[in-house]
């Protein structure tokens, strides 16, 4: 399909393990966003990439969280030493370019459960 693809769709892991979440944006989209959505809550902005560069990483909740994007395409969000409060749905979105006028196209997320 031509939409944003996220994998895995579900991930269950034990507290203290590292996890890696993947996002494949729409081809040609230069802007990419990561969000976290806890049950029944709104979207919490984590990080934005323009190309391979993330100008502002202040939205990442702690230094256990990191993200990278390579080749202006695929992005990975890594959470080290997972904690139970990291349990949430992690959503990725892409847009043609960044900026306030651009609609974001979302994947269906990775549901992360920390035991």
């Amino acid at each position, binding site marked *: 399909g031509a939409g*944003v693809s996220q994998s895995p769709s579900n991930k269950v892991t034990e507290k203290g393990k590292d996890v890696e979440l993947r996002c494949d944006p729409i081809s040609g989209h230069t*802007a990419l*966003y990561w*969000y976290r959505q806890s049950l029944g*809550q*709104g*979207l919490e*902005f984590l990080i*934005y990439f*323009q190309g391979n560069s993330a*100008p*502002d990483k202040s*939205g990442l909740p702690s230094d256990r969280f990191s993200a990278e994007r390579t080749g202006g395409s695929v992005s990975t969000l890594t959470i080290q030493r997972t904690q139970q409060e990291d349990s949430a749905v992690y*959503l990725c*979105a892409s847009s043609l370019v*960044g*900026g*306030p*006028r*651009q*609609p*974001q*196209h*979302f*994947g*269906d*997320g990775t549901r992360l459960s920390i035991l």
Partner: protein
Amino acid sequence: SQKIEQNSEALNIQEGKTATLTCNYTNYSPAYLQWYRQDPGRGPVFLLLIRENEKEKRKERLKVTFDTTLKQSLFHITASQPADSATYLCAHNTNAGKSTFGDGTTLTVKP
């Protein structure tokens, strides 16, 4: 920093009526506001974008208004249908790429 607030957690209306959802923003007036629909277990889907100097924007049964005096955007669904039941999110992006979403209003349209 900008904050987006949406009215009430749930809105229940009868089929055929008009649903009106509210989005309030604090601080500066955003140049654009976006509205999304989110169904359970799915990512949000973009619906409409309205510019600060546009009073109103329409798309089929959807209408969005932007009132900079009240610091508010209203989202209307006319002739509502049960299939319109979903959570509706208001959002603002900055030029620097930071996105702020409201917590959403869950709409239930009863047949």
